[in-house]
């Protein structure tokens, strides 16, 4: 399926280019993905009330230099649920994820319009320090990236940044237990984090993010570099985490989105096409493009 998807991608891209430049080529026999204009309105099913949302993204647009990567995205992320962002490569799902903890600020030439509200605070407000935002909204990356330090120091890194004065041992143990890693590493806390297996490293990264005690955890394709066994462990962990945290996960793997998420948002070329309960998106999509994507016709 993956190779098929890859083969389809350039077609859609060339077609988009042709259409925008007004070229009058004959449309290929394969049915092309319909284009979304500026008048596209996100299709919403059982939309999340503002009161239930921990993060509210409103009419968010983002430019990398002159390239517009996000077109007026509006999305409410419900508390203590898992929200999955799906879509083809380059659709802006990772970009959207990174606007939530202002990681995009680190990219030169980024400009943002619109609002992201977290617990009643405008994250892009003038008086908001992006460093503080990142301390409250944790992030786990595509590739496990533990620091070349001991397991203990990896977890303690975040708390140490803020000059944590309490019981560090207890905090480290709590974070490792929350990340379902304590049983495996309790006897090798002083060994290098790089000595762990790939799946353990990714759970170490989750523990490291949890140690700063965030309320929202952003995950950018956390299992894309892991084998099925390790992926299974992480997915079970996400299920556990949802009790205490709000999780937003970007994934390429639609089965994974189906397994772990409560709600799913489907994006295409910078626009939020459709969002709703995961079952609805997968079994009863309302927009034609969502239907085509979840059934494997493109992406």
């Amino acid at each position, binding site marked *: 399926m993956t190779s098929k998807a890859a083969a389809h991608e350039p077609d859609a891209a060339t077609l988009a280019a042709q259409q925008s430049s007004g070229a009058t080529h004959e449309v290929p026999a394969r049915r092309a993905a319909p284009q979304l204009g500026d008048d596209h309105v996100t299709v919403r099913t059982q939309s999340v009330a503002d009161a239930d949302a921990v993060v509210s993204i409103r009419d968010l647009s983002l430019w990398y230099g002159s390239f517009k990567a996000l077109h007026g995205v509006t999305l409410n992320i419900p508390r203590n649920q898992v929200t999955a962002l799906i879509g083809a490569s380059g659709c802006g799902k990772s970009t959207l994820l990174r606007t939530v*903890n202002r*990681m995009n600020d*680190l990219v*030169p030439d980024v400009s943002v319009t619109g609002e992201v509200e977290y617990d009643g605070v405008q994250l892009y407000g003038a008086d908001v320090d992006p*460093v*503080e*935002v*990142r*301390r*409250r909204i*944790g*992030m786990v*990356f595509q*590739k496990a*990236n*533990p*620091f*070349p330090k001991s397991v203990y120091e990896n977890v303690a*890194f*975040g708390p140490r*940044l*803020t000059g944590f004065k309490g019981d560090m041992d207890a905090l480290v143990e709590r974070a490792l237990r929350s990340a379902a890693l304590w049983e495996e590493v309790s006897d090798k806390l002083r060994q*290098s984090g*790089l000595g762990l297996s790939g799946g353990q490293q990714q759970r170490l*990264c989750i523990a*490291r*993010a949890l140690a*700063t005690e965030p309320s929202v955890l952003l995950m950018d394709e956390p299992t894309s570099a892991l084998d099925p066994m390790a992926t299974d462990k992480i997915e079970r962990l996400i299920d556990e985490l949802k009790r205490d945290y709000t999780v937003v996960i970007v994934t390429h793997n639609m089965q994974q989105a189906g397994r772990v998420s409560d709600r799913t948002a489907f994006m295409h070329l910078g626009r939020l096409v459709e969002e709703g309960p995961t079952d609805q998106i997968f079994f009863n999509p309302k927009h034609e493009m969502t239907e085509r994507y979840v059934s494997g016709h493109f992406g």
Partner: protein
Amino acid sequence: MSERRARGRGAGSTDATDMFDAGGVNARRRARNQRWFMTVVGLPIVLAVGLLAVLLYDVITDSFSWQLVEPRNSGVSFSFSDGFRPFSTWERVVTLDLLAQGQSQDQIDAMLADPEARRVYDARNRVELMLWADGAPLRYVVSSSRDRHLEDYSLAEGIARYDELEAAVEDGQMLYLNPWLDAAFFTKNASRTATMAGLGPALLGSVMLILLVIALSVPLGVGAAIYLEEYAPDNAITRLIELNLNNLAGVPSVVYGILGLSVFVRGIGLGPVILAGALTLSLLVVPVVVIAAREAIRAVPGTLRQAAFGLGATRSQVVFKVVLPNAIAGVTTGVVLAVARALGETAPLLLVGAAAFVPRPPEGILSIFTAVPIQIYAWVSENDIEFTHVASAAIVVLLAILFVLYAFAFWLRRRFRSAT
């Protein structure tokens, strides 16, 4: 030509056996090419290693020589515990010997304390400490500096003609293998007499220079590298700075010498002092340090920076807690290599006025100075054939210091790599 190629290709594709190189013709040709290639590549390596061996052999054998000396001392030898104390060896043994000759302690003290009396004593005598001469641990040999009682044979010549030389030794003379590079060589001051010349002032000058260069260029170079890699916006000015840094690293060192002369020695008016030399060498070293440090910083994976930012680290926390600790091996290696380069530099120091003859060790960063390479250059230019040995001994010292520095850089790399 094209027709022949076409025919060749046609034959290859139709004849199945030939296609699989059944006769092994192609395999033999490849093997021959491979041998030829290995010869071409291997020859320069063999040549380089051979030349290096010749250099080392030459320098090391030149730092020994057979000397026929006619001592004019008390004839008494002294035990190590009596004579050998670091940094006072010469004076102690001279004192012991003069006492043995019947001079009073007061006379000797007066002579040693008065610089002029000491200078006269030095100038009139060839005074040397000898280990294991005449079957005793330590003795002190004096012969008049103007007489012909001291003869000098190279190591090879001395070994070849040992029996002959041994037989020619007259009463009161002795044949002695002089290791010019002995403990006293490091502490003796400069002298117009080869047997008494030492590396003391030059070594101390070089050490002070290098420490100053490190103190000046490391904060500047590493700071600039951090700024360029982690803070500077990617614009025309930054790119211009980068371009210039790369060019500066390739500027001949003499040019830096001229700059140092006009800016530090004359412009600021420091004069030909250690500080001026160190500032000039720092100019030379900073671009190299910046380039090495930038490479090391760039080699720190971006994912680590992302992880730290994601945990709410400020930019300076990312730099000091993640980037620098992971780049430190490369940075220190670069610094050590750059410093090793500065240690061997001669041209810029000549231009800023490092003196060829400095009788006493420098007292501070504002004294006149000389450095090991300058001293070697001065000794090689001396007329007296014996200075060949002194220069060789100094070259061995310089090479040894460089070897230690490179080994240190290698060890640092290994250590930091195993730590991560």
